[in-house]
């Protein structure tokens, strides 16, 4: 293809967009909104996956002791924990420390604790199993072993609610597929209608082009490019908007589980490329349908 001709197609596509600016702006806004919703789901999914990965790789366990456990029994429990593969005692929390932590957490509401006749909180160990997945540690088995020891009241581990979160992640994924599919259809529909309008506004020119010997593709290509440009602009603007929203969110500390704030990550580059390419492809599909039906 002659270079000049390539520029001709691009020029025609941009001219079409300029002539139907209002339609294109409205359409672009809708595409960006659709992609933003899709991108938000993707971002939520990526972050949930990330958090699950982080929590899953460092299994944590709270081991609660019975009241009145002797120092001898505690030493035995201590030794047992230290012998577990990958286990590290992060902290021993005495009954007093547990009460102190609770008071600190309740702040001004902690007054009622003063009226308690005795401290009901148990002493506990906070244990971390580093690289839990890699070492194939079975938390339920460890829990059973610990409960068999004298002096242990209860054991709770992070995988119990991780499983619940994984279930939630599956729901998010499924919703993402359904909503994403509908939004993709919506984008194709919007682009098809926008291109239909520009074809309609150029119908006289199309007629003349055909009369002077333009091939079908000569007439169609600017419209295909138009759809592609819409997709590119929509994809680009949606990613930028999503990034700005991410900056706002990630600047705030959000605590969901445990003492550490949630670490927000943005979409990885391959996801951004995927979202951008998807937007471009949807633009092309939309314009392809329009030119197939109306030219």
């Amino acid at each position, binding site marked *: 293809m002659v270079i000049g001709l390539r520029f001709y197609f691009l020029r025609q596509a941009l001219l079409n967009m300029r002539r139907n600016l209002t339609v294109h702006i409205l359409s672009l806004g809708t595409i960006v909104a659709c992609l933003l919703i899709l991108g938000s789901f993707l971002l939520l999914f990526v972050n949930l996956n990330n958090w699950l990965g982080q929590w899953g790789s460092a299994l944590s366990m709270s081991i609660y002791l019975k009241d009145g456990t002797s120092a001898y029994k505690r030493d035995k429990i201590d030794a047992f924990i230290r012998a577990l593969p990958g286990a590290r005692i992060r902290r021993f929390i005495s009954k007093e420390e547990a009460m102190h932590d609770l008071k600190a957490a309740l702040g001004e509401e902690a007054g009622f604790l003063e009226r308690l006749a005795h401290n009901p909180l148990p002493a506990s160990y906070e244990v971390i199993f580093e690289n839990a997945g890699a070492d194939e540690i079975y938390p339920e088995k460890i829990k059973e072993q610990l409960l068999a020891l004298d002096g242990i009241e209860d054991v709770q581990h992070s995988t119990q609610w991780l499983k619940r979160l994984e279930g939630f992640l599956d729901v998010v994924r499924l919703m993402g597929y359904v909503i994403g599919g509908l939004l993709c259809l919506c984008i194709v529909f919007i682009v098809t209608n926008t291109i239909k309008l520009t074809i309609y506004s150029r119908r*006289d*020119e199309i007629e*003349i082009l055909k*009369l*002077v010997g333009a091939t079908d593709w000569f007439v169609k290509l600017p419209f295909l490019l138009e759809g592609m440009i819409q997709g590119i602009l929509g994809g680009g603007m949606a990613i930028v908007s999503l990034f700005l929203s991410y900056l706002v969110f990630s600047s705030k500390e959000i605590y969901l589980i445990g003492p550490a704030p949630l670490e927000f990550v943005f979409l990885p580059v391959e996801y951004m490329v995927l979202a951008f390419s998807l937007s471009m492809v949807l633009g092309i599909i939309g314009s392809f349908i329009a030119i197939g039906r109306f030219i």
Partner: protein
Amino acid sequence: MIQLFHLSKKFGPNIALNSIDLRIGKGEFVFITGPSGAGKTTLLRLIFGAEKPATGHILINAINLNRISRSNLDLLRRKIGFVFQDFKLLPNKTVFENVAIALEVTGIRTKIVKRKTHQTLRRVGLAEKEKAYPLSLSGGEQQRVAIARAIVKDPLILLADEPTGNLDPDLTREIMSLFKGIHERGTTVVIATHSRELLEGTQCRTIVLNRGNISGDTW
């Protein structure tokens, strides 16, 4: 150059052309005349491939239009110039752009498109109006833009449908001299007209159509 064999065309129950046989040789200058509704425009549109015949065959340069593919018809149209009765100019494009469009579709370099468009607009006397828009031009000037668009690609055949229909006698003479000039350069020119003034004293071949039949041919 142009051969028609038993060519018929119907629009619903109305017969527009009835078993026409006709040959127009290379480099001829031919008038097709007849009253309104005689089938002049239909005949030109069939030769141009804008209509399909009900029966019969059309051969352009030995290519049968009944058997031509759509893409080859597009390529053939690049060798045929058509001046439409209603000019068919694009109001939102300049004179230059209206003419250049016929070259742009061929995919030739922009530099050549510009050079040939300038040359053609000079030929039709519109060099000064290149940047003007069609609606700001007079009827005669718009007609010349339409002619420039038809001849800019150096067509083998030039078809013109009532090219002087809306023009005064002076402009008619001007336009006809343009067609003569194009013909002298070797182009086969076929003009459909119902204007008697245009045909008075002409030495050119004149084909008379009446109710879809050829009722006279001075050949």
